[in-house]
Structures are given as C-alpha cells and as structure tokens.
C-alpha cells in the first residue's frame, strides 16, 4: 500500500433508530436531564462541523447489532462475515445451527452488495 497524503472521504456514521436521527440534527426532543441534553448538543456540534455525517441504515445491515443482543441464524452469519472481512465461506460448510442449509452463504459471495450506497 502506497501511503500518500490522501484526503479521505467524510466520516459516515450509521444509525438504525429513526427517532434519534430526527431528534439530534434539529436539537429537538425533550431531554429531561442535563446529562441527555449535553450528549445531544455534543453530537449536534459534531454534525454542524461536518466531522461526522449521520445516516439511516436498516437493522438487517447494522453491523453493530451483533454486539447489543445475542443474535442467531442467518442474520448472525451475514453480519459476522461482513465484519470479519468475508473471506471464510468455506469454513461455514453450508450448515445451519440445526443442520439446515444456510442461504446466506451464496449471497455472501457478493459482499459488496451489502455495502450501502453512499450519497454523493
């Protein structure tokens, strides 16, 4: 890899909660404690300076979903393979938790299709 003084794209942050997305940029909502208000203002400030850009993503593509609750089955494997880089389809051996065929394996061949399309 050639390391040059390259300019990176904007830092995209994905969220799967529409009410947070609606609340934060406008500074709306009713934060009833100082602690929540401070947090909201902090994120709002980051958005105003374009350090981060917030965007919605569906829960099925949300990679962080795995670490908030114990998932299982197809969704677990789709997300895990994307996180690990998606080079281990062979190890999965087409077996499901109870021996059934896992359909996500064939879909995983096109990992790029899971990457959300970025807005211009």
């Amino acid at each position, binding site marked *: *890899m*050639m*390391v*040059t*003084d*390259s*300019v*990176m*794209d*904007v*830092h*995209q*942050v*994905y*969220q*799967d*909660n529409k*009410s*947070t997305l609606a*609340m*934060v940029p406008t500074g709306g*909502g009713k*934060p*009833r404690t100082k602690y*929540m208000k401070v*947090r909201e203002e*902090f*994120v709002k400030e*980051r958005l105003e*300076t*374009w*350090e*981060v850009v*917030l965007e919605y*993503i569906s829960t099925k593509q*949300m*990679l*962080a*979903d*795995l*670490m*908030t*609750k*114990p998932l*299982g089955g197809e969704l*677990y*494997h789709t997300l*895990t393979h*994307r*996180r*690990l*880089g*998606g*080079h*281990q389809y062979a*190890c999965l051996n087409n*077996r499901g*938790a109870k021996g059934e065929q896992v359909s996500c394996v064939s879909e995983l061949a096109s990992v790029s299709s899971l*990457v959300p399309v*970025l807005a211009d």
Partner: protein
Amino acid sequence: MQNGKYVIAILYVDDILIMSGKSEDRYWVKPLLEDRYKKVTSEEGDRLPYLGMTIVKKDFGYELCMQSYVDDILKFYGKNVREYMVPATGNLFEVDGASEVLSDKTKFHSVVAKLLYLGKRGRPDILMSAQLLCTRVQAPTKQDMTKLKRVLEYLKFTKGWTGSFDRSEFDRVTTYIDASFSVHLDGKGQSACVVMLGNSLVHEVCHKQKIVIKNSTEAELVALRRACRGYYNGIGTYDGNGFRYGRPSGIPRQ
C-alpha cells in the same frame, strides 16, 4: 520519502514493525539497530507470528489468524466439546441469582481473559460474550460457566475463521452504532460501535452503558455520543500515517 522510496517504522512497546515498498529498501535499518543495541532478533516474510496472532499476507490484503491461540484455549476445556454456530443463547444477559457460585474461580478467570484478548484482536465475533463474562469474574456462577462453555463450543466450530483486512476502498471510514435498552440486570443498556475502514474492521467497542436512561431513543443517543468521542481516539492514529480527513467538496467548515 525519497525518490519514491519510503520506510515506515511502527513502534509497539519493545517491538518495531518495519515496512517499505520494496523489500530491499529496508535492509539498511537492521544493521543500524544492531550497531546501537548489539542483539536484534527479527523476522521477515509474508507470515509473521506475533503475540498469538499470525499475520499472513494475501492477494487481497492481510489476514489475521489466531487458530493456535484458539486451540490453546480449547485445551483448557477438554476434548468432548460440542459444536455450535452462534456464541450465545438468548439468555446471555440474564443473571440467575440462585445459581451456585463456582468453588474454583481461577480457571474461569484465565479462560475469560484469554477470550477477551481473542475478541479484541482476530475474532471480534465473540467480543460481546467475552465482555459480558468479564463483568462476572468476581463471583462466577454455574450459569456463567454454561455461557463460557457455549463460547468455547462456538470457537471449536469456527476455529479456522480469520479476520481479513482488505486493501480496497481504504479511504472510506464508516461507523455503525447501535444500542439496546435496559438489557442488563441493573436496567442499563448496551452500546456497540463498529468502525470499518473500507471493508475491513479496524476498531470496535461494546460495553454496558454508564448511565440509566428512560427509553431506547436515549439509549441510541448515549451510544452515538460515545462513538463521536471514539472518532478522535480511533481515527486520529491515521493522521500520523499521512492520511487526512476531508469533507465533501462544497461544504465549508463552520
């Protein structure tokens, strides 16, 4: 950088990783170090073992393999391990107060600490289970041991899995933030943040939230705030390597 040649040295505690475009560009570095420190051990090639990890060069980028480390952990548990495809069952966050406390905690501590290391390096898929088990080390119960066994059973099935670092799209940073509301015993939520550089995972955080909140929207906000702070910690390291962050053209800095 000189005449298109460059050498990058990365220092980590007492180890140095030296990289260059062509392999002959970096040969002058080792004699220089030997002059100064007399004895220098070095390894070179497409396969570097380091602290339980093996970093393998592939055509798409790099691969981080920790199979020997996983084998090491499984030795603790014995041979008759079943295999599962997911590291946790639905009751991962549930704590059974009536469950008996383990008499020998040492083994539990040792395996959990190993799992945490594994989770933070090559196998992020077990990080959530490892993080949860780490909160139970003071008084581990039989129920916690069952959860630990489940992770080991998952590891046995997936021990060949590796983390890979794809070279393509290395200029795009995306962060995924999610939270769940009131899953822990004390009513606190769980936040998770995944930072991807192109298609490879570079940084991830998963922890119990520090404050008690009222609803799931607030839970997401708490996670979001934490991740915005993480932006400086995690991404700042790339500044030193010649990368710099820009903003989309036409958007002025305010």
